């Protein structure tokens, strides 16, 4: 039952107002009471006591359409915590306004020089707005720069939340209007993402992205061949839990440059999880969505597909700190598996199977997903690890990958060379002997330790157990007389490194080199 409150309610008319309300409620016999405060100008403590007594009889009572002045009274007296209080919403029009951002749940428009409004897709968005405000606050407290909405408005039939955003330009706009700033944008974009990914979120504060991704994967069980579907679910489930923040919709329209400050907007997809889930959504934003129809990106981001592809490649390289093509391919493929899964599900849920265009895009993504599933056993990656086919032709890639890590650790050139030589000796050994006559892969992991400053390079392979440390050292002095130079590589490795250890564990050869810096 809706009851209008009008004018002023104070000690002069509180008693009378109370009687009227009770009479009306008794007459209709409903239990749900909504007080419509659209016409309420003022309420004193006598009036507030009326509402309190009402709440005792009707615990579900709420107040809607509260003016800012009355809201202030209710807020100050603590009433906003006792019962639901909904403000009267300012009405804002976005007609003719510039679209500056677009996220999973809404579109952001600039309404005047200082303000933007995010209009939610969901008509009943108050809960979404509350959620976004909560997570934006959390992000801000944890050190991630973002804008927090200060007002909720009505935009047509939808709700919107208003943010202050002065002189701000989205990164998409910068990229499309000033192409020479692309590299700068990539740098800032990566810096911000690393900041997000380094943020530890207290348990339970944000949703777990893996759970969402598992539900996407399970959805696919009905649309993929049985084996592929099962594999998809199992590799998503196998991604370890991670309490670091991920943004979830991190593309260049959601990053704003305000004066000289980089700000994140659109926080409603904030969650926790392994970065592979973030990379999947970034891949989709720049490539996945527009991979079949390259025009899509233009209307969404304002720049063309080639620019988007360049941005993605540069981003991934900077994010992972590597130029190694094999590493970049490895991580991209993992991201694509989740990315395509999400795109296919999204299209199917939007009726994609019922239209020719929809079926074409689903088939396109599915073909790629199936090919990737065939050759991928894990979605987890680490910036310090490279998995490659154990083949001598990958030697250069492995050495480059290790050397980049040493360079990042300020390792001097002579030590980098020595490590590089040792890496060759071990990797070529694996390539030549571990899987003969078959083929297999090897993992190379680089770790830098602080005290003492040292670097460890670990090689893992599933080949025949082989301990290279058991062989006899060659006698260099007898080289000229035709002495046996067998084991020269391992001998050099031992001489060049400060430590070398071998073990065979869980079906793997594990060889670790250590060098003090």
């Amino acid at each position, binding site marked *: 039952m809706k009851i209008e409150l009008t004018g002023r309610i104070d000690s002069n008319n509180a008693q009378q107002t109370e009687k009227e309300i009770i009479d009306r409620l008794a007459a209709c016999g409903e239990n749900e009471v909504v007080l419509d405060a659209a016409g309420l100008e003022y309420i004193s403590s006598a009036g507030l006591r009326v509402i309190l007594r009402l709440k005792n009889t009707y615990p579900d009572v709420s107040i809607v359409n509260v003016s800012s002045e009355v809201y202030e009274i209710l807020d100050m007296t603590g009433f906003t915590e006792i019962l639901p209080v909904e403000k009267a919403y300012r009405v804002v029009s976005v007609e003719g306004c510039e679209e500056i951002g677009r996220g999973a749940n809404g579109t952001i428009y600039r309404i005047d020089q200082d303000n933007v409004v995010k209009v939610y897709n969901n008509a009943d968005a108050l809960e979404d707005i509350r959620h976004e405000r909560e997570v934006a606050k959390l992000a801000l407290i944890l050190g991630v720069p973002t804008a927090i909405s200060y007002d909720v408005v009505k935009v047509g039939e939808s709700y919107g939340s208003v943010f202050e955003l002065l002189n701000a330009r989205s990164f998409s706009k910068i990229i499309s209007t000033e192409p020479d700033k692309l590299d700068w944008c990539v740098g800032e974009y990566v810096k911000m993402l690393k900041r997000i990914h380094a943020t530890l979120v207290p348990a339970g504060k944000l949703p777990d992205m893996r759970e969402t991704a598992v539900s996407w994967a399970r959805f696919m069980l009905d649309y993929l061949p049985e084996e592929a579907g099962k594999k998809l679910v199992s590799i998503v489930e196998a991604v370890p839990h991670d309490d670091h923040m991920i943004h979830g919709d991190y593309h260049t329209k959601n990053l704003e440059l305000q004066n000289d400050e980089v700000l994140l907007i659109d926080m409603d997809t904030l969650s926790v999880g392994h970065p592979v889930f973030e990379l999947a959504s970034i891949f989709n934003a720049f490539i996945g969505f527009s991979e079949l129809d390259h025009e899509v990106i233009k209307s969404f981001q304002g720049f063309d597909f080639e620019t988007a592809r360049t941005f993605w490649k540069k981003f991934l390289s900077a994010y992972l700190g590597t130029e190694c093509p094999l590493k970049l391919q490895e991580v991209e493929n993992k991201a694509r598996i989740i990315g395509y899964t999400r795109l296919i599900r999204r299209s199917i849920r939007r009726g994609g199977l019922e239209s020719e265009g929809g079926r074409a895009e689903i088939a396109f993504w599915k073909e790629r997903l199936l090919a990737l599933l065939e050759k991928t056993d894990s979605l987890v990656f680490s910036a310090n690890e490279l998995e490659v086919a154990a083949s*001598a*032709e990958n*030697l*250069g890639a492995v050495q480059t990958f290790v050397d980049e890590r040493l360079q990042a650790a300020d390792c001097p*050139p*002579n030590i*980098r*060379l*020595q490590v*590089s*030589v040792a890496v*060759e*000796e071990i990797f*070529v050994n694996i390539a030549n002997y571990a899987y003969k006559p078959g083929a297999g892969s090897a993992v190379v992991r680089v770790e830098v330790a602080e005290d003492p400053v040292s670097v460890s390079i670990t090689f893992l392979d599933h080949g025949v157990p082989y301990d290279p440390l058991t062989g006899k050292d060659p006698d*260099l*002095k007898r*080289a*000229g*007389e*035709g002495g046996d*130079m067998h084991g*020269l*590589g391992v*001998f*050099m490795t031992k*001489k*060049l490194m400060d430590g070398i250890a071998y073990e065979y564990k869980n079906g793997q050869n594990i060889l670790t080199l250590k060098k003090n810096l």
Partner: protein
Amino acid sequence: MDIRTERNKEKTVITLTGRLDAVTAPELEKAVNDALEGTAELVFGFEGLDYISSAGLRVLLAAQKIMDKKGCMRVKGVSGPVMDVFRATGFSEILTID
């Protein structure tokens, strides 16, 4: 890796630029084999050599073994980092390094 061979009567100079690793060592092996015939003095110019591993050193050792019987072999222009590898592994005592 680039290999340049210069021949002056019985003296052969092989100049290397780039990386001498397991992938490129067979190229050097071929260049050395082609050069040995009639050479009494074999010089390796390492000014432009950034990298050397056991695969390259095997080629040098094999050449040394042959040259010990018919003349001499020297390595010159070794960079600091490569010299460190030679020292750490004992090659600095096996090879004649200018």
